[in-house]
């Protein structure tokens, strides 16, 4: 049995690889610059935001996959997967926020933001599809 890979899915994998490479480069640059106290003022803000841009790009790539995927069943699986991911992320972040509001957990996120939990949610969504429909769709995780 061969795994289904439409041209849209292949395009998504390439976009993901490019964006993740850019993410690693920008993150390395930002961490190096901030650890070495090499930036300040407006440049510091720009550099701090830089690694967020490829992450936002991944959101765009996932949404483009939902638009470009020609197979309606696989598209339905992907939509379910992203909805589960969104629900999972909002649930975790809401609970975490309330725990912080009552000082039961430390402030801050130690770098594990909404995007991290959304990506974890994509994995949960794929598992949900596998259990309920017997198929996880594509490689959107």
């Amino acid at each position, binding site marked *: 049995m061969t795994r289904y890979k439409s041209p849209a899915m292949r395009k998504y994998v390439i976009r993901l690889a490019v964006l993740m490479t850019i993410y690693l480069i920008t993150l390395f640059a930002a961490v190096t610059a901030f650890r070495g106290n090499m930036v300040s003022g407006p440049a510091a803000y720009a550099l701090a935001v830089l690694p967020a841009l490829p992450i936002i790009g991944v959101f765009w790539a996932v949404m483009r996959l939902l638009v470009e995927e020609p197979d309606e069943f*696989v598209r339905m699986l992907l939509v379910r997967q992203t909805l589960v991911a969104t629900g999972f992320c909002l649930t975790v972040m809401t609970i975490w926020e309330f725990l912080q509001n009552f000082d039961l957990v430390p402030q801050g996120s130690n770098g594990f933001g909404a995007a991290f939990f959304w990506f974890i949610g994509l994995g949960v969504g794929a598992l949900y599809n596998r259990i309920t429909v017997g198929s996880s769709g594509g490689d959107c995780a």
Partner: protein
Amino acid sequence: MNNRLKVLRAERDWSQSDLAERLAVSRQSVNAIETGKYDPSLPLAFRISELFELPIEAIFSSPTKG
């Protein structure tokens, strides 16, 4: 929604992959439709109907009429 896709496919000695290729969909889609886990859209139902040269109601049973 029940359907006769598996029977019609077997009559022609087609595998799920053969049918998927003829319909330009994934094998997963054919499997999900055959097992009743997914109801195809109207355009896909028409494609299936045209491929087997049968009316839609000869392939899919109405969920309300049984």
